[in-house]
Structures are given as C-alpha cells and as structure tokens.
C-alpha cells in the first residue's frame, strides 16, 4: 500500500493514530488524546458551497476537536461539494458528504478518511438471522474500537464499540469481513457460531510507518540508515524473558546476544556489527531518552514494561548520539497510558530449569584404575591408595560430586501493570517481581521493579511528564574471575573431588582433607565444592533509580521544543562473608558500597514543515549536558567470634584488614551540540544529515572536542512511475549512509593525569599492614577520540501484497585511533599501561532478513529469518606494535595459557596456537619425527603423545611454532522466528545459531590430564589413547606428561562451537471472549514455553555459547527450562 503523505495537518496529529495503534508514544508529541471519546453525535453547523473536502475538514476542525488523518492523494480528483447542514452529527455529516469512493472511521478525536473497502451500508436494516457477538482485539489482546465488521457481498455491517465488542445479525453462510486501519483484513465464516472473537494482526508495513529514531521519530519510508525494530517486543509478555536483551537475541540481523552461561546473575553480552575496539564494545541503550551503557543496569529493566525497541546499527542512524554510539544504539520506549482506556494486566510465569549438559567424572573404581594405569604407563608402581587389595575402601563410590553441586532451578515472575488516563493526564504504572534460582547450588537472582510513566497536558501547547523506574536486584552467582582458577572453579572442583569421599562427615560437618597417615587418597587441593557453594554468602543488592522528567512545548504546528532532565542513581552494596573452613580458618566479611549519580539534560528544538506539498523538512537542533560521578569504598573485617547469620555484620569484626580495603572515586562530564536535517521529496527521495559536537572532561582541553558528521540517502523506487506496473513488488527502497562516531568509553576517568595508586604492604617487621602510594600509571595528555566510520548500503523490499519481505545490508565499519593499552614494557616500571590512540580495526558484514506472512483466514502465521556475516580484521596497530598477546582474565587459563593474540592482518582475539597432527601411534613413529639434521623434534614423545607441528622448522616445538587458528566470533549468526495462530491457539518457535566459531576448551587441561596431582578426572579420559584404543584423540594416561601434551597451547584444545539451538518454543491458548466477558476479563492467555530444549552442536564442552573471548574454563552451563505462564488483562 502507499504511504500516507502529509495532509493538511501537522505530523504530530498524524502520530495520534500511531499511538492508538499501540505502537508507542513519541516523546515530545505527548499532546494527549482527551479522556472522553467524542460521541459521533457531536453536532455541527455547516454552511459551505462549492468547497473542497479539505475545506470541509478544516471547518470541522474549527468547530470540534476532531483531527483528520488521510492520504492527501485520496482527495486529489474529488469533486467539490456543497455542505449545508444544521445540527448534524459528525458521523452522519461525513456519511453524507463523502463520495462513494471514500469512507471514514472515527477513533477518539481522530477521523481517518480512507478509500472505501465496502459499499456503504445501513445499520438499521439488517435481516433477522443469527445474533452474532464477539470482540475484536489487537495483537496484545486489547479491544479495538471502531473496527468495521461487514457481511461479505452485502452492505450490512457494524462497527465495534469502545471496548472492541460488536454484535451483528448474519445468516449462517455469511462471511464476515473485518477490517481496520493498520491491520490486515480478515474473513471469517459465520457457520453456526454465535460468538466470534477475532484477533487482528498488524499490517507490518502500515504499522511501522513511524519509527523511533534518535531524538524523535521518522516515517519508515524516509529512513536512510540501517534501523531495525525488534519485532519480538510486540508480544513481549507472551513468553518468559529474563531480561530485555533476550528479546533481541536472534531477532535482528547483525546483532549478537550471547547469554553468559547459566549463571542467573550474569548479564548477556550484546554486540552490534562486530567488535570494533578491545575495550568497551557494549552498545548504547537509550531508555525513554536517557542513555545507559551499563549492562548491569540494563538487565535490571522489567522486560514487560517495554513497548518498543529499535536498533540503530549504522553510523548514519546512530551518529546523532555521537560519543558512546560507536557500538550501535538500542532505543527503548516503555509503555505509556492512553486516555479513556483503563487496562490492568497481570502476567506471570513459573518454571523449572536444569543444566543443559553436565560433565561426568570417573567413578571411584574408574578413578583408581586410571591412576594405576597412569603409573604403569610410566613404568612406576601404582600407589597403595589406589590398590584394590591394599585399599578396597577406596573403590567405594560415595559421592557423585557433579550431581551434588547441580540442582533443579526455579524461575518465577510476576508483572502487574495498570495503564490509563483521563482527558489531560495519562499514566502507566507497573510492578514486577522476578526470582530465579540457578542450576548450581545456592546461586540465584531476585529482581523487583517499579515504574511510573505519566503525561500531563497542561495546555494545548504544553505537556509535561515523567518516566520513573526503580529496580532492586540481588543475586548470588559464581565469580567468573575464578573460572580459570583450578582451586575455585566449582565445576572443576566437582570433577576433581574424590568420588570415594563423602560430602559431609558423620557429624554433619563438611568433609575436608583426609587425616594423617591414612591410605585414603585425598586430593588435598580439591576443596569440597558443595561446601564452597553452600557457604557462599554473597549479597549484592543493586538499587537503581532512573528518573526522567520532560516538558514539551509546541510553539505552533511547526515548531516544538522539548527538554528532558534525567537522573540515574545507582547504589550497589556488596557483602561477602567467608565463613571459616578447614582450608581457611579465618572468617572475614568484605563489604563495599558504591554509589553513582549520572544526570543528563537534553534540550531539542524541532521544526517540521511541508513546502509546496512535496518537500518535507524536519530540522532538529539540540544541546545536552551529562555528568557522571562515582564513589565506592570497601572494607574487610575479620575474626568474627560467631558466624551466626545475625552477627555477620562489620561491627562484630574484631579486626579490620587494611590490605583488603580501599576506595575508588571518579567523575566525568560531557557537553554536546547536535543538529539534524531530514528532507524528503514526494516521498520518493529522502536525505538525512546530522552533526554532533561532543566535548569531554576525560581529554585535555586541546583534544576534548570531537565533531561527528553523518549523511544518509534513501530512494523509494516503488513510488516511481515505472514501478507502478510491477505488481508483485509491494515496496522497494534503497538506502545508503555514512557516518563517523566517537568513542572514549575505554578510558579511565583521568587518563591524561593519572592519579597515584593506593597500595598496601606490611611494615618492615611485618607486625602491621600499612598503606602506600605509588606512581603506577603513565598519563597521556595526547589522547584523542577513538573514531568509528561506517558505510552502509541496503534495501528493504516487500513482495506479493507484503507477504514476503526481504531486507539486506552491507556495511564497512572502520575504527580508527583505537584506544588501546598497548603491551607495556616492564622497564616502564608501572603496572597499568597508558592508553594510547593506536591501531585500526575493520568490520565488514552482510545482513539479510527474510520474512513470509499469511494473514488471512483462521490460520495465520509468519516466519522471519535473519542471517549475518561479519568479518573482523585488525588493519593496524600503532606505535611500532604489530601484535598483542592477550593476558586479561578472559584470555588466560591458570596463568600460563595465553591462547589469544591480535595481530595486524588477523581478526581481533585470534587463537594463536601450536598445531597438532594427531597422536603418535608407536614409539617408532615418535622417534622418527625428526628435524632435517636428524634430531628429534619431540625428544620425549612416545606412543600416545600428541604430535606437534614444527611450524618454523627449527627442530624444536616452542612458542615460535604458534599459528593463527580462527577466533571465537562466528562467521555466520542466524535466527529463525516463526509464529502460528489458529483460532485461539498460538505457537511460536525460535531457533538461533552460529557457525564458524572456535572455542578453546581449556577445561580439558586439567580434567583430561592424568598428570595433575591426584585429582579425579572427566570420565571421557576413559577413552584415552592406549595400545588397544588407538583411534582416540585423547593422549595417553601418564603422570609424567613428558611430551607436554597438555602443557602446550595447541589446537588440540580448539573446537568448533557452531550450534543450532531451539531457544524457545511457546504454545499459547487465549480463552474465548464470551467466557471471559462474564468474569469481566478482557483477555486471558495460558502458555507453556520450553527454552533451550534442543541444541545441535559438535562441541563437547558444557555449552557452545561460551561467551567472552572463547576460552572455556568450565563455565556455568546454560540451563534448559520449561515454564508455564499466564497473561490476564482486565
């Protein structure tokens, strides 16, 4: 269908329709619809002759508060009319005055004029057939007023009332035609039914007419950038979501969301169009106009509050946000109230989760045999402790430690919302409670949310309002920094722990190391993981209060001013009590308190005007100020006399530990000017250009200003004359854009004047702890903005009456002056490397989105698929550096495995490993593996050891033999989303997957290595190479580890982690309206959801969604869940 172009009336009025279509509410145009729906009976006095319809409409506007919405082309060749009426209702008047080809619908105060889809009908002359009743609802189950219900082939029909109810008399063989602007029409056979409820499906191209963009909204047809609305948000309460990020996963091409394992406290990692920087690659979220980049805060949002999400992927779209937008922008608009409609909704779900996959350890007997075999392989005598005759007790299986640490988790959620309003005030308020216990013992997350959004129309011109959002979360997860630590990773500990040992002693206390002189083979270091998890007493409440007050003033229909003042207050308390344990007798309490105040003032002026009907211009100018301050301190108290729960407070500590106490403070601010021009000609060609100037406190006065331009163009080729005859194409448009954005999020608060480091030490004689100050950083006053340039080319198309949609984008994103901490020479004598502008990183990619929808009939469905490919490359590193070996916590295992490197010409974070070539099948084969000079390449290797490739040909295997072998970022990411509706049933299925991602399974380093102490191992070690099991890829059992099978950072650890996962399948049932009507319920839906029920992957680790940089140290595995839910609306 063709797009509405501008009629007589300012854009903002037109947006009212959009509001009614429940899409969203534009921030500044909160010129609210009045509370009372005007009766169509309001009377007019009209005396006009030979006037155009436009003139008539204008007169109606003068006399009433009605506004009009229509496609101006509709009125083009309409004859002039005479209008002479006294005391006629608006509805009656329009019925008389409009030509046959036009019809009207009145929604609240807006009159929509559209092409007649039906002959005029007379509601007074319906034959007496079956009395048919029903309710027509939108996609959210809310009643739709003003929907036309027509008996096909006749002039008989009716219109739904305010709550969406209709009644009509029709013969049994009649077919009802139901149509409503913004929604696809439906035809339903009456049959012998007396009640037919109909849920209308939005017509996608109509609905998305208006899209939220930075600092405003735009008609989709005018958009020049790569912008995706998140479809899944429309039905956000229809399935259980843990957080807002989950709504995006797999639904937008080019956006990857990796769930960080199954830890309930973990926050998903969102990446838009690849990683362009080694530091902060999180996108910017703008929630009701307030920027937020802290994933910990974003994930505290109640997903049920979200009305729409838009992803600004390319620079031409996001450059208006300048700084912080280099990694893309996600705009979130929350639900607001509507006049006259009070809706109360309650959504809840409850479900069970368990680990998708658990590792298995050897049984006591297998463990003993494995230890013995390893000794025998080395030519040594097995230990008595593992002897079946000397220590038969040792072979008794007492504990399956893996089973002991896992549990069935429970997830539950309650969300209650009330939305509504009167003539001049509307509100939306909600309360949410979410609780999830993890699949590992004693891990959980709780979240409580409150929200109030309200809007007040103080006069015709002035509107004020606010969005206030409070969340309180608390949780206890696993410390991800301990993952690489064999003594603190609970999953590894459960593998190591002796299956012969009990979890607890007879007296109920946790079992510890074995006593002296016992034949008990105790792996001393293998701490009791059940004890570790159970004792974990961590409380981490985060109180977030985000408030945003705005005022919008409309000088006239062309010029509007909007001012927003937003505050984000975060209070984060962390308390960790460590009770005394056999290994660590001292108890202690670490308590820290962090508070941050982040405020923003944004002021924009928008001018919108259409010149000569063909030239639409919107100008935006803005000024914003942002300020952030942060303060935290932490104190450690120790020596608690009692460990009772009620005395685990600092006051009861008998000593304070200075070494584990400290504070951290920082401030930063930003001043920005912004401007944008949108120009569209005849709906065919559009141009967007923006400029933003940011000045930051974090750079020196000379370097602090960055100016970031963008430009985008679009061509609606479908509007061209030559396309009119191409009937299978419903819509086709091409887009192109370029922009440059700055980024300094990597930087610390004061990179140009680094403060001294507060450190601690002991006094000379060790009697006390003392604090000290060290010059431990290097200031770099020459720092400038990191800049990301992005070029985007794409098209959007619809075919066969919008049934098929296809969009594609190609982009090149280049990050220059990348802010890096280059590897620091120890000779510098500081531990913190200075930031420098170095390097260039390029991401190139292609994104495709394909959709099909069937909207007619009782069985409707839509299928949407998207796929994206991103290629990342480091094109330069500055300052003479050509490569960086990554040593951060995400990139290391046990302090000695550094498998990740970034080098010019390679992707960021590439695996850099020694290649292996299978296992030596015989000692001879190992001995014959020689260098040109005849010396053995692996002098100690024997049958069953890994063969490593001497890549540099120097005759030995060492660090210089490493080669690049891919990285953790997938070549392709894809998602498929399908929704089916049949009568009252709905089914949605969501698959998501990646291919071409590599993972370094360092988990195997200790769990497959018989040489590591006396630890128990992963049961897969049973398949280790032996002369009788020669086709294994697991090296032989040995305590010697002479060939450094496991110590070598080799590709033996690398695995393809491609996967296809059924992320979500939901079956829902909506109760029929006639049942609900009696209970005064407008909508009731029951559903059951399965998450992660099916995963296809060749990866044999715990979970292919490893996250981070792809070093899998044995992470908290993803959970699989079955959830039952209920949505009720009143």
């Amino acid at each position, binding site marked *: 269908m063709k797009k509405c172009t501008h009629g007589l009336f300012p854009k903002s009025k037109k947006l009212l329709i959009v509001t009614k279509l429940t899409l969203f509410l534009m921030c500044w145009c909160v010129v609210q619809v009045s509370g009372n729906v005007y009766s169509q009976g309001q009377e007019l006095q009209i005396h006009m002759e030979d006037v155009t319809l436009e003139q008539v409409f204008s007169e109606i506007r003068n006399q009433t508060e009605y506004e009009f919405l229509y496609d101006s082309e509709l009125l083009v060749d309409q004859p002039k009319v005479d209008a002479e009426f006294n005391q006629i209702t608006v509805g009656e008047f329009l019925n008389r005055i409009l030509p046959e080809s036009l019809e009207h619908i009145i929604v609240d105060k807006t009159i929509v004029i559209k092409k007649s889809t039906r002959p005029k009908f007379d509601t007074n002359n319906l034959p007496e057939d079956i009395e048919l009743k029903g309710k027509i609802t939108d996609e959210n189950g809310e009643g739709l007023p003003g929907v036309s219900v027509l008996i096909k082939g006749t002039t008989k029909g009716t219109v739904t009332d305010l709550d969406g109810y209709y009644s009509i008399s029709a013969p049994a063989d009649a077919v009802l035609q139901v149509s409503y602007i913004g929604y696809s029409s439906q035809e339903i056979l009456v049959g012998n039914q007396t009640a037919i409820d109909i849920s209308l499906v939005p017509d996608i191209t109509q609905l998305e007419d208006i899209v939220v963009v930075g600092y405003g909204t735009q008609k989709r047809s005018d958009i020049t950038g790569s912008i995706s609305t998140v479809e899944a948000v429309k039905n956000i309460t229809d399935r259980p979501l843990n957080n807002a990020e989950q709504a995006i996963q797999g639904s937008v091409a080019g956006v990857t969301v990796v769930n960080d394992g199954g830890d309930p406290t973990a926050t998903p990692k969102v990446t838009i169009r690849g990683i362009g920087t080694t530091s902060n690659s999180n996108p910017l979220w703008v929630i009701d106009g307030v920027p937020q980049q802290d994933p910990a805060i974003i994930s505290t949002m109640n997903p049920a509050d979200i009305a729409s999400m838009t992803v600004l992927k390319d620079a031409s779209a996001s450059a208006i946000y300048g700084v912080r937008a280099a990694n893309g922008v996600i705009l979130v608009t929350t639900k607001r109230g509507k006049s006259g409609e009070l809706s109360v909704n309650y959504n809840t779900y409850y479900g069970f989760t368990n680990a998708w996959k658990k590792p298995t350890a050897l049984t006591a007997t297998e463990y003993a045999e494995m230890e013995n075999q390893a000794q025998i392989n080395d030519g040594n005598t097995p230990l008595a402790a593992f002897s079946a005759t000397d220590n038969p007790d040792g072979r008794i299986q007492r504990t399956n430690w893996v089973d002991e640490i896992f549990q069935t988790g429970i997830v539950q959620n309650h969300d209650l919302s009330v939305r509504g309003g009167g003539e001049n005030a509307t509100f939306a308020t909600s309360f949410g409670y979410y609780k999830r216990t993890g699949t590992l013992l004693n891990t959980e997350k709780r979240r409580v949310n409150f929200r109030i959004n309200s809007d007040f129309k103080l006069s015709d011109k002035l509107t004020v309002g606010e969005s206030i959002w409070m969340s309180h979360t608390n949780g206890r997860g696993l410390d991800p920094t301990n993952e690489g630590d064999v003594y603190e990773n609970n999953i590894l500990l459960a593998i190591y722990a002796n299956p012969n040992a009990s979890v607890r002693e007879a007296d109920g206390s946790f079992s510890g190391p074995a006593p002296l*002189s016992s034949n008990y083979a105790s792996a001393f270091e293998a701490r009791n993981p059940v004890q570790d998890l159970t004792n974990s007493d961590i409380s981490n409440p985060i109180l977030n209060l985000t408030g945003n007050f705005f005022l919008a003033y409309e000088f006239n229909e062309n010029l509007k001013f909007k001012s927003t003042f937003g505050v984000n207050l975060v209070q984060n308390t962390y308390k960790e009590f460590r009770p005394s344990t056999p290994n660590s007798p001292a108890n202690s309490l670490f308590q820290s308190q962090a508070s941050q105040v982040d405020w923003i003032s944004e002021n924009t002026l928008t001018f919108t005007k259409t010149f000569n009907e063909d030239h639409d211009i919107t100008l935006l100018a803005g000024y914003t100020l942002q300020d952030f301050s942060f303060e935290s301190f932490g104190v450690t108290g120790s020596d608690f006399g009692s460990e009772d729960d009620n005395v685990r407070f600092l006051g009861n500590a008998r000593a304070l530990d200075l070494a584990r106490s400290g504070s951290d403070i920082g401030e930063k601010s930003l001043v920005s000017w912004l401007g944008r021009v949108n120009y569209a000609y005849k709906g065919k060609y559009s141009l967007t250009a923006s400029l933003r100037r940011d000045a930051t406190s974090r750079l020196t006065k000379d370097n602090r200003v960055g100016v970031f331009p963008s430009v985008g163009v679009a061509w609606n080729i479908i509007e061209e004359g030559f396309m009119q005859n191409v009937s299978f194409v419903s819509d086709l448009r091409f887009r192109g854009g370029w922009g440059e954005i700055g980024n300094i999020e990597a930087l610390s608060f004061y990179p140009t004047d680094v403060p001294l480091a507060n*450190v601690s030490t002991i006094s*000379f004689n060790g009697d006390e702890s003392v604090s000290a100050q060290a010059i431990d950083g290097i200031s770099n006053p020459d720092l400038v903005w990191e800049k990301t340039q992005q070029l985007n080319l794409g098209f959007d198309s619809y075919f066969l009456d919008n049934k098929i949609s296809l969009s594609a984008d190609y982009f090149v994103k280049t990050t220059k002056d990348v802010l890096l901490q280059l590897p620091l020479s120890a000779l510098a004598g500081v531990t913190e490397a200075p930031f420098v502008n170095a390097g260039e990183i390029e991401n190139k990619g292609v994104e495709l989105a394909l959709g099909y929808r069937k909207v007619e009939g009782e069985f409707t469905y839509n299928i949407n698929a998207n796929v994206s490919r991103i290629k990342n490359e480091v094109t330069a590193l500055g300052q003479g550096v050509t490569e960086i070996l990554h040593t951060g916590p995400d990139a290391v295992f046990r302090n000695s495995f550094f498998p990740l490197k970034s080098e010019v010409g390679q992707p960021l974070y590439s695996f850099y490993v020694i290649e292996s070539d299978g296992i030596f099948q015989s000692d001879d084969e190992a001995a014959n593996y020689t260098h040109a000079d005849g010396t053995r390449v692996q002098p100690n290797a024997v049958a069953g050891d890994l063969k490593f490739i001497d890549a540099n040909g120097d005759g030995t295997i060492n660090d210089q033999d490493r080669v690049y072998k891919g990285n953790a970022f997938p070549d392709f990411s894809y998602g498929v989303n399908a929704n089916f509706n049949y009568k009252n049933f709905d089914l949605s299925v969501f698959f998501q997957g990646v291919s071409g991602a590599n993972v370094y399974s360092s988990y195997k380093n200790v769990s497959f290595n018989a040489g590591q102490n006396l630890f128990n191992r992963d049961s897969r070690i049973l398949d280790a190479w032996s002369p009788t099991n020669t086709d294994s890829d697991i090296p032989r059992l040995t305590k010697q580890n002479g060939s450094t099978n496991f110590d070598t950072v080799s590709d033996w650890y690398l695995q393809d982690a491609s996967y296809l996962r059924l992320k979500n399948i939901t079956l829902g049932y909506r109760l029929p309206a006639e049942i609900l009507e009696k209970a005064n319920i407008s909508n009731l839906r029951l559903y059951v959801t399965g998450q992660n029920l099916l995963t296809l992957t060749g990866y044999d680790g715990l979970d292919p969604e490893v996250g981070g940089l792809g070093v899998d140290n044995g992470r908290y595995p993803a959970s699989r869940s079955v959830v039952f839910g209920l949505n009720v609306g009143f």
Partner: protein
Amino acid sequence: MKNFIILLIGLAIFPSCDDFLEKEPTGSPSIAKFWESEDDVDAALAAINNVMYDGSLDTRNLYYGRPSMWPIAAGDDMVVGKSKSSAQRIHNFEIAGPEKDIDVLWIRNYLIIKRANDVIINAPEVPGLSQDEVNAALGVAYFYRGMAHFNVAYRYGNQKMGVPIKDESNTLDFFVERASHVKDNYDFIAADLERAADLLPTLSTAEEGAPHRLAAYAFLTKTYLYWAEYDDTKWASVVTTANKIIGQEGRALEASYADVFKVVNNYGSEYIWSATGSVNGSGTPIPGQMLENGGYQNGVAGWGYFHPTEELYQAFESGDERLKVTLQEYGDVFTFLGNTMTYASTSSTTGLQFNKYMDPWCGYADDSQLHPNGDSNPSTTLNVPIIRLADVILMKAEALIMQGQNADVEINMIRNRAGLSSLANASLAQLKNERRVELAGELSDRHFDLIRWNDAQAVYHQDLHGRSYAITDPTDPGFDRAAYTLIVPPRTGAARTNFDPNIHDVWPVPFNEVEISNGTLVQNEGW
C-alpha cells in the same frame, strides 16, 4: 502559565562553561600534588616494599614466595612437588614462551627500580625536608634499587649480555637496551649499595626489619662474589666487605643451628636481611609453600611445592645437627600445633620434607603464628633468610680459598656449630658442600652457586631421587623407616640432559618483553 514555561525552560538548560568539563583527578593524590611532605616520601618508600609484599594483588605470586623459589628449585636440593606444569618447565629448563611464574621476577624487580628512582629523583626536592631526612630516604631507595638490580642482573645477565640499567636518567623510557656485560651491572649495583651503606642507619638504630648499613654490605659482598666470576680482583672485595659485617654490630652465629629458624630469632644475632613474615598482611609465604600439601590437619594450609631430594639428604655428613633441623623423614616424631605426630606423607614425591621453617607450627600449640587466611596466604610470623651471617662467612671463606688463602677459621665456625669436627686446609669442594647443607632451602640460591661453580651440568645430567615406602603408615607394626626404595620423582626428578651451561646459565628474558621491545631487548642466546 507563561512564567511557568519560562521557568521550566530556564531550568532545563544549564549554563555551559568550561568549568563543567574540568574534572580534577579525585580519589588519590595526583602526581602534580605529590612530593610535598615527609608523609609522601614515606608513602613512596612503602610503595617499594609493596612490590615485594603486595597483599592485594596476587598472594600466590608474592615476590618472596614461589617466584623467588622456582629458579632456586631448579637446583638439586629439591623437586617441584606438585604437578604444576609451569613450575616443572622452569625446573626442567623447558621454558618456551611466556611463563608468568618466573616472568614476574623480571617485571617486579624493574617495578622496584622504578619506584626507587621516583624517590631518588623527587625526595631531594620535597620542601621542608631536612638533609638527614632526605638522606634517610635516599639510603633506602638506593638499597632497594641495588638489591632489585642485583636480583635481575645475576639471573639474566652474563658475559654475553647484561641487563638494562634503569636509573634517574631514563626512568620513563620504555625501551632500554641491555648492558653489554653483566659486569657493567655489577659496577652500577656496587655503586648503589656503597651509597646506600653511607646513607643508611646502622642495624641497631634502624627500625626493625628496615634497610640498614649491614644489609647493604651483605648485598655488596654477594655482588662481588658473583662479579668475581668475571673479575678475579673482586675476591678481595668480597673479603673486605664481609669483614665490615662479621662481628660488627653484635653479628654472631646463633648458639645452635635450630635457633636460626625460630620466630623469636627473626632479628637475632645472625640476622642481616630476611624476607619478612607477617600474619597482618602478606609476608613471605615460603614456610607454608614448603609445608606438606594440606598441612596435616584441618585448618592448616600447606602447599607442598618443594620436596627435598635424597641427594640433599645424603649431602649431610653423619653427626651433622643440621640434618634434622633441615629435613624430616618418615618416622620422625614432631609436635604440630600441640599434637604429637609422626612424619609420613600422602603427597610428598620424595618422602622428605623441609623442616627448617616449621617453627610457626611446631614451636607453638596454637595457630597464633599463622596467617588467618592460610589457604590463600600461607604466611607465618617466621622470616626467611635472604642473607644471614653464616652466608656472609661462607662467602668470605670461598673468596679466601679462591685467592689461595686458608679459610678454616670461617668454615669451622659453621661446622662446629653444627656439631661437626673442624677441617684443616678446607678445599673448595668442602666449602661447596658446606655452603649447600648450611643454606639448603633458603633464598641464597643453590642453583646459581652450581652455575657459577660450573658444576651444574654434571649435577643436572643426573637423576634426582626420593624415597618410596611400601608401608607408608608409621603406626603400622610392619613399618620400617629404612625400608624404602629410591625412586625418581615424576616430571622433575629425571636427569635434565637438555641442560646446557652455555644457554641455561641465565634465565630467558620474558618472551613477551622481548616481543614488545621493538627490538631493544635481545633474548638470551639459546632460549
């Protein structure tokens, strides 16, 4: 209404000014506001100590813990008792890439040098400081700079190449080339230590555990000892400097060898310089890291990394009182936190254990001498000697012998205390063994002694041994402490035939450091 609007708009737009963007560094002093008082100097001096005793960073890799001990454990006195692969690679001279466990030595020594340089540069400029106060600060700074420079020089430098010299003139440079010969380093170190000795207080006037004159002389003696490898004239300097220590300021051998390793004698008559133990922060964790893995009973953390070899056991002459003080073997009865126990081990790979540092557990009936957070920080109140008087005496003895002079007085002082008879015309070989058994398991560095004596190849090309008992339970009636077979402990016991004195006399400069140095740092040949 109009006024209201104007008010709101006025409130909304904050006046902009540059002040809004000027954020002064907050939270800790900025460099511009440092070096203004004596307190600042004290804080900067404490920051040097912080590198060695940093409790907040990484207790596992505390300077005077495992990182200092791994290269010493490459000698023949001990094997790496746990299957810690990086430690095994160090012991076996198989380092082929970044190896954090040993790389920290290079890194932290240059960190100490930088922080010392900061004091040397800035202390004289601090307003209001008297010359004495400036000198006191400089004395400490020169001492630590010399010490750290020494620790890095002898481990990485030789006649082929020294190590980078970082002083006041180039403290901010990232890229500094290596000195052409380690002699250049020793020359520089000696100058720093001489200056320190001039400026530092005497032992008796210094704060307990703080740098003092004798400690500077002790490092100077050791510097000359190592320097003499390349320059025979330095043997005389060893003797001269040692004489500034021996008998001075009450320095005398403790009456019995066992007394040396008692907490109460941390600062006794034999003390010159030690790694400090502490239970109020992070002191040296070496005692806990040597203790049986798991520590015998709930509540005691031992890490069990360093297991003494049978070769060390056999190095003791019969009647040497030092044997029982130094080592424990199966069947030895001892008191452990008030409980009588008989030594046996579920985890020792050699059947032996270092007994030297067990006073915090064996000399006390409670855990008062142990760090309360023992599992992650097995520090105790016991100091671990770095250079003690006996070491200085033996250095002097060695220098005398090397100059063809008689060192019987010195050697017999040591032997007689150990209950051994006097030697006449003690040979270099006898001196070497005396040095081995006297200083076993200490930070003196047995491995480097073997290197500089050119004995390493012969020793390292042999297997190291431990004991294996068929009946491991001493309470078993069939137990016999002599009924053991000799075994080669896994991984680090076997002969290291790859050892080449032309390569492995020095450790590899951290591979990462070489890689990022833009070619200024050259790796040691062969590594």
